[in-house]
């Protein structure tokens, strides 16, 4: 295994532990144990638990960003793009729940970990930039209403994040998949011209 591959594996294990137990309840030695590595060797890959947390944030943001970029580059109506983004998000919540959990449980709930080096958009810019491009092009094509960016961003991301959270809590009565259609429709209705 190359150093890069090993690094990725550490990130994968750390992601699932952070998502499951939270940042503070997970130690470097927990991660090392799962990796069957010594704690000392772990530090060859990541100088601190914080740096690991930041890299994970950049990694998840990039992953989402790349997927949304593919949607942005499709020659389809904004209404269909919304559906594809919602689908992408809900599918991730179902198949890789640790990614969403990490975002909600670690990033959004422990901003102090990210205060130095991940402030503002720094570590999530890959994702936010693609959302900006999605909105900007939708307005340019006269499919979406021209409004404040954060009013639209909050409506979109807050809504689907909230649904993923309810799903995780076991509160939803139906499968998350079944919400793709009505949720996309609601978002489009709120954002359309």
């Amino acid at each position, binding site marked *: 295994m190359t150093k890069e591959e090993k690094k990725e594996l550490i990130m994968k294990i750390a992601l699932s532990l952070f998502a499951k137990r939270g940042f503070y309840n997970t130690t470097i030695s927990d991660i090392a144990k799962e990796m069957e590595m010594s704690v000392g060797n772990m530090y060859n890959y990541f100088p601190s638990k914080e740096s690991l947390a930041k890299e994970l944030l950049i990694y998840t943001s990039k992953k989402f960003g790349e997927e949304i970029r593919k949607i942005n580059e499709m020659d389809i109506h904004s209404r269909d793009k919304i559906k594809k983004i919602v689908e992408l998000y809900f599918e991730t919540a179902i198949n890789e729940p640790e990614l969403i959990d990490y975002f909600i449980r670690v990033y959004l709930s422990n901003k102090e970990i990210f205060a130095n080096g991940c402030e*503002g958009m720094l570590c999530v810019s890959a994702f936010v930039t693609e959302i900006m491009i999605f909105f*900007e092009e*939708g307005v340019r094509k006269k499919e979406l209403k021209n409004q404040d960016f954060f009013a639209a961003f909050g409506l979109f991301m807050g809504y689907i994040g909230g649904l993923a959270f309810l799903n995780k809590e076991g509160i939803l009565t139906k499968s998350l998949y079944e919400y793709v259609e009505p949720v996309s429709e609601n978002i489009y209705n709120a954002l359309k011209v």
Partner: protein
Amino acid sequence: MHSKFKVLWIDANTCYGCSHSFFNYKEFSSLFDEIEFLYHPLFLSNDFSIQNSDLLIVEGALRKNFFRMGYEFNELLDSLIKRASNILALGTCAVYGGIYGEGLMFNKKEKGKYFDLNIINLPGCPPHPDWIVYILNMLKSNKQILLDELNRPKEIFAYTSHMGCVRNEYFDWKIDAKDFGEKEGCLFYLQGCQGPFTHGNCNKILWNEVNSKPRAGTPCFGCTEADFPKDNLFKTDTFMGIPANIPLGVSKRAYLTLSGVAKSLKNDRLEKKLINYLKEKNEDR
């Protein structure tokens, strides 16, 4: 003694702003040592006649059924063009039509009546006097003027009016001037400044050698561009809060990424009035 360089300056639909800009050239009187104005509508020159010229300067936009010196203007222009060694479309009206809409080579962004001619285009409302003199000097000394794809001199229009702006540091860090006339802060996001995508070196050479619109607190109006004048010159066009026009030469994705990073990192020195920043630092000592 070699003969003087002969210029014939004709006025189409114009406010004469280009002429007045030219009159403000700092060494105006010295131009007459080597240049003879066969005709200029505003200053004492010979009586008008259709004749050969080394350079025909057209100021103003075209219009049908418009008369000058007893001639229908379009017919007059055809005759003068045939007799001119070089042609200069002077000002945004002559180049793109400006507020009238019909220029020589272009009607706004569409091809115009004289699109196929080899015309030098010098847009601007008005064009800087140094630009006009640059053309005169180059032509009378038989030097080649490098032109871009819209026949504008590259020496002038390779620049944007953003280059040389004293507010560039604020642009870099995305710190906006919140109100009209503020001395500090960038005018790009809120005040309608078109500098980053408007061609011209005016912020580098300055007007009257002292100032420019953005330096003084007025946004660049994009006066050298085909779509000048746009509506709402003091307000930035945005789509969902994102500028509709971004700086030239960069992809939207790259630009938004860079802007987000700059905004996130912040520059404490520029966040407040410069003078207050210094005062507080001294107080700390």
